[in-house]
């Protein structure tokens, strides 16, 4: 059995935005794999390893996460709040990726523990920069 590469989790309900992030990531780091969930409930299920995502071999804990704010069922803020209660994920960097450039949203996201607040659209340069900064900050997970 091959070891599952730790993926990047993208929580995004707009398939255009999924396309643009995939495209930017492919240019920046073609070696990284991306798993996409399209609403807040799926995101919580994945992070908690429940229901469809109970199999951690298939769905390993992500090494980092890109998170939209406006999502069906649970919004990005609620997901950030939920993450604070999971010790295993406390170290996982979360990058909010949103169309909102409102200070109110930015401040709230950072206060809830987001590592960075990125305004769409994502570019390859933007991704390289945040991936580098998170690699510097994180301990070596192999």
């Amino acid at each position, binding site marked *: 059995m091959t070891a599952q590469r730790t993926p990047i989790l993208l929580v995004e309900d707009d398939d255009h935005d999924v396309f*643009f992030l995939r495209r930017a990531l492919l240019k920046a780091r073609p070696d990284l794999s991306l798993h996409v969930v399209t609403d807040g409930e799926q995101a919580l299920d994945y992070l908690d390893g429940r229901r469809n995502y109970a199999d951690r071999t298939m769905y390993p804990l992500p090494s980092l996460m890109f998170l939209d704010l406006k999502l069906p069922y649970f919004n990005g803020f609620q997901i950030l709040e939920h993450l604070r209660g999971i010790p295993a994920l406390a170290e996982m960097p979360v990058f909010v990726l949103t169309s909102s450039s409102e200070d109110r949203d930015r401040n709230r996201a950072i206060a809830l523990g987001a590592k960075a607040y990125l305004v769409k659209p994502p570019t390859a340069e933007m991704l390289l920069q945040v991936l580098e900064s998170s690699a510097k900050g994180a301990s070596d997970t192999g």
Partner: protein
Amino acid sequence: VENSDDAIITKNLDGIITTWNKGAQRIFGYTAAEAVGKPVMILIPEDRQHEEPAILTRVRSGDRVDHYETVRRRKDGTLLDVSLTISPVRDQRGEIVGASKIARDITELRRAREALQESHHELEKRVMDRTSSLREAIAQMEEFSYSVSHDLRAPVRAMQGYAKAVLEDYGEQIGEDGRNYLARIVRSGERMDRLVRDILTYSRVARAELTFRPIALNMLVEDIINQYPEMHPPRARIMVDQRLGTVSAHEASLGQAISNLLNNAVKFVASDVTPEVRVYSEERGEWIRLWVEDNGIGIRPDHQARLFGLFQRVHPDKKYEGTGIGLAVVRKSIERMGGRVGMESKGAGSKFWIELKRAL
């Protein structure tokens, strides 16, 4: 005593009426002949008869009863609200032999009081209703602009994104014209996005909850200039006077207004001219007027009146990118803070000003 509007009655310690004036006749309906010699109980409704012994006890011990509000009964059986003042009556030796009672008809007063209270409650209720519907309207407005910022911009961003992707991935194959068209899609998308963002700024300024505090203008202007590379040499030169003063303002709204003025000042300049902007202020009584003076292309007098209106562009030239919202934001934010805005332009260069109350 005889002609007083109030009823003035005396009674002995057994509670028997001994004198009775015209006022008493008017208020209670009994003539003096009918009342004198009768127990005072004839004036007291059944459910209040316990009051009389208590009053007599107080009178016997020499105490006064002041402005005691109660209910009494007229000859015809109808009830009226009265205010009673009762004092002991003494004989020549100083012995208490009875009581004098002044009764004032306060039926009208009580009605007026109740009406006042009722309208007070009514008013309170109305204020509460209005406040809650206002809150609801504000919440809806916030929800609306949140949706605008997310939902309205998303398709524009997607169009731009795909046009850019085609340019990058297939630009070589589609030739000069094709690339040019795609670039136009991208530029139009950028313009649409800027419009949406500016409208959002306008609505934010228009509905922001204003909290006032003293704002040092020098510090604020400096902070703004530091945010914009286009306001620094070699692209522009902004000279700021040392003592701009301190105004009472809502910081975010004022910051938005000044930043729009400075952005305009460095933007609307002939292409071969380096923008030079001077920021200074003058005290005008309790007001401070902040001036932003530029060396730009100026504004024709016949355009100046509509300059601060929404969607007004007086330089539709492609060279000068604008949405026609910036100065409307300036006016909205300053006027909401109780201030004024204005401008002067004679040929070359413009001088814009905003005026706010000096901080005490």
